[in-house]
């Protein structure tokens, strides 16, 4: 048990709690999804710190699963939920 690492994990937990504001009020769907991604990254960091703090190396494997699956939700969201309105326009500002 090392209190220092657990204290650092405790500092990171509000970063998740405050980020929830963006899920609740984010204007577009992508804003909400981005916050879920932030939770993934913060969750990996908290797991790494807890693994050092609790002296349990198994938690590194959970962090590995977190990071492997972090992209999956966002990609499904882009492919399935947040498609453009039919036709793609290839005219962008400032070409």
């Amino acid at each position: 048990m090392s209190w220092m690492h657990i204290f650092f994990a405790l500092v990171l937990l509000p970063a998740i709690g405050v980020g929830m504001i963006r899920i609740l009020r984010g204007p577009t769907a992508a804003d909400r999804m981005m916050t879920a991604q932030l939770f993934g990254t913060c969750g990996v960091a908290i797991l790494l710190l807890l693994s050092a703090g609790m002296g349990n190396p198994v938690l590194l494997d959970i962090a590995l699963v977190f990071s492997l699956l972090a992209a999956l939700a966002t990609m499904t969201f882009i492919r399935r939920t947040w498609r453009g309105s039919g036709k793609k326009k290839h005219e962008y500002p400032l070409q």
Partner: protein
Amino acid sequence: MNILYNSGTVLIILGLPFFLSGTVGLIRFPDIYTRLHALTKADNVGLGCIVCGLALQSGSWAVTAKLLLIWLLVLIASSASCHLIARSAMHKNIQPWTRS
């Protein structure tokens, strides 16, 4: 050994403000593109600092390799999904916020 441990602690402490500022940026920045900046850059650097600090403290090559692997995966995942989100926002014709 103690020097390694302490410099690891310093690196971890260095990493925490990056995470907090990533969240602050996500709340404060005005539009989706600027929020993506905050999300990808700040969090990856913060995680990098924490990973390096823990690797210095762990004192084992296997744990170090696993930590670096985790960081690499997060790096790839976040930069790819950041590009995807920005691209579909462009396809949806969401205009970037500009200083008026």
